[in-house]
């Protein structure tokens, strides 16, 4: 277990800046998830933390000690790579014991720890196999096992589940959640997957274009996004944005409404629109409504029992207390005073 502080961390590749002035405090045993669009610098940040790339300026502190110049192996960090990066010519057991072997750990001790990790991850029968003889999910477990065996202070995961199919991903997510419970180690986890982020994280860090947009618990981010980037990134389907003027709030540039807060009614009860697409998921129903003056179709999440048809003329309305106001720069604004407003 360890605490970790980033302060003023910058990184450029050549003349291209990739990370700008990153400040972040991670507490002991915390599970922090980094999310953000592709190319925003998440992997780069992980590589800086584990020491594979050097920090241009700023400091990285682990357990109160500045480790900018400490080599990767001495930081007490284990990393699980997106490609797994297993050693192809070594058996599963050798893969898992490699770090310990390099550290000169006695053989019996290595065997004991490899076996213990193999039991946790149900890898026992596979210990003698080579990575190419394993399925994707098994490889993933070996990669995690290789990290566990080292008993690190910090775990880094770079999109560890992105190469797995949906069903396996659910299983592995549960496994990682169990691991977090059992080990209580500080973990940093990069993902593109909303559900992984929301279910695993103690705190989510939303990144965009090399900057941190907001840090907070999953529900905080969901309920009070600091700006429209975060608002649009957290939540699926994503938040609808309507011009403020259109919904009777000209002070705000844009009004954001989550699909579950969009109310759909018959013609004449709000903004007029036409249903263009219906996605029925059984329990829920997503209606995509085209509205004059709104660029994107507004998505409304409705009860699965409702009957909505493509081409139907409808009207939508939103509540002030469930909508989010953003100014022209995309920053969150305080709620307006007129208490109830239907467009």
């Amino acid at each position, binding site marked *: 277990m360890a605490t970790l502080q980033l302060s003023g961390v910058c990184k450029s590749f050549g003349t291209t800046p990739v990370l700008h002035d990153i400040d972040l405090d991670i507490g002991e045993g915390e599970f922090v998830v980094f999310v953000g669009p592709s190319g925003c610098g998440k992997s780069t940040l992980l*590589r800086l933390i*584990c*020491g*594979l790339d050097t920090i241009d300026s700023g400091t990285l502190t682990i357990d109160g000690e500045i480790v900018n110049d400490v*080599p*990767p*192996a*001495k930081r007490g*960090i*284990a*990393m699980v*790579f*997106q*490609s797994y*990066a*297993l*050693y*192809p*010519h*070594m058996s599963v057991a050798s893969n898992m014991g*490699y*770090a310990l072997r*390099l*550290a000169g750990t006695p053989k019996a001790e290595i065997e004991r720890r490899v076996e213990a990790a193999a039991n946790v991850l149900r890898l026992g029968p596979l210990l003698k196999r080579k990575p190419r003889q394993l399925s994707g999910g098994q490889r993933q477990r070996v990669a995690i096992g*290789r990290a566990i065996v*080292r008993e690190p202070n910090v775990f880094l995961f770079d999109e560890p589940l992105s190469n797995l199919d949906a069903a396996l991903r659910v299983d592995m997510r549960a496994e990682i959640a169990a691991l977090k419970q059992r080990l209580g180690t500080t973990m940093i986890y990069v993902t593109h997957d909303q559900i992984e982020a929301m279910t695993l994280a103690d705190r989510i860090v939303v990144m965009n274009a090399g900057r941190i947009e907001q840090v907070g618990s999953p529900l905080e981010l969901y309920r009070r996004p600091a700006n429209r980037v975060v608002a649009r990134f957290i939540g699926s389907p994503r938040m609808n944005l309507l011009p403020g003027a259109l919904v009777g709030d000209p002070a705000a540039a844009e009004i954001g409404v989550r699909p579950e807060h969009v109310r759909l009614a018959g013609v004449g009860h709000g903004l007029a629109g036409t249903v263009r697409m219906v996605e029925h998921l059984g329990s829920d129903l997503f209606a995509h409504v085209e509205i004059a003056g709104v660029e994107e179709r507004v998505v409304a999440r409705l009860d699965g029992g409702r009957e909505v048809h493509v081409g139907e003329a409808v009207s939508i309305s939103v509540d002030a207390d469930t909508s989010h106001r953003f100014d022209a720069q995309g920053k969150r604004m305080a709620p307006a005073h007129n208490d109830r407003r239907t467009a």
Partner: protein
Amino acid sequence: MSVAPARALPSSPPVSRLAARGGLKAGERRVGWIFMVPALVAFTAVILWPFISALGLAFTRYDLRTPEPIFIGLANFRAILASPQILGSFVTTFVFVTLATVFTVAVALAWALILNQSFRGRALLRTATLIPWVLPATVAAFVWAWIFNSRFGVLNAALLSMGIIDLPQAWLSTSAGAMTAVVITKVWISVPVTTTFFLAGLQSMDREQIDAARVDGASDWHVLRDHIMPHLRPVLLVVLVLAVIGNLQQFDKIFALTGGGPVRATTVLSIEVYRLAFDSWDIGMAAAVGLLWVATIVPPAFLYLRHLLKDA
């Protein structure tokens, strides 16, 4: 909708009438042989027949005093076993092949590892690396002969000016010096291609695997031993076998540089055969030594072909 394709299948005509009878394959094979004939004829006339008749000469006496080859059984081979000089050329060949192969592979591997790093001017250096390869072998040999020359060679000039030697040395006129010179020349010529092989192997290496090893605590040496070398193993095997075959066959550079001398210090089998055939005009003996020489090349060639066919 489901009916149409089911009906279409049986009624659609087969690709070929022969295909239905399974006769297409046999027909193809016959046509294949016809296409092979020109190549086979050329191969037999130009390579196989001369080779076999040369092998036949190994069992004859055929020199300046015999107008026609006379069959003498294994007498040539008994003569070889009794000749310390010819046996010596086997040893010389072994020394040359071993040194040239080991140094070629070691230098090329090191050079490939350097060129695989990213640094300014890497592309230029990679291109420059190929220069020795494009030089004709004899030109390269004369370049090195000039470097090693006792009176106006660059090597002597450099060592004299650095104060390492007091007098110019006649490098090529000592046994060890001549062997060193031919090995260096051969290594210098072989390194570019070998480096290219290794570089290709290195570029297919998974970067994240090395990153993972670094996080696991691997030093440069560990990365090389535990990750890069196992990855390069198949390349290394091919390179080693090709180098051994190439060095066993080596003739032109050695002949141009030392002519097999001083005395017999660099007389490898290829030079031995040449001398027997064209200095002594003892064709029978030359063929016998040549037969043994070919026999040395067979095992590595066999290994190489087996490796190639296994992968195919």
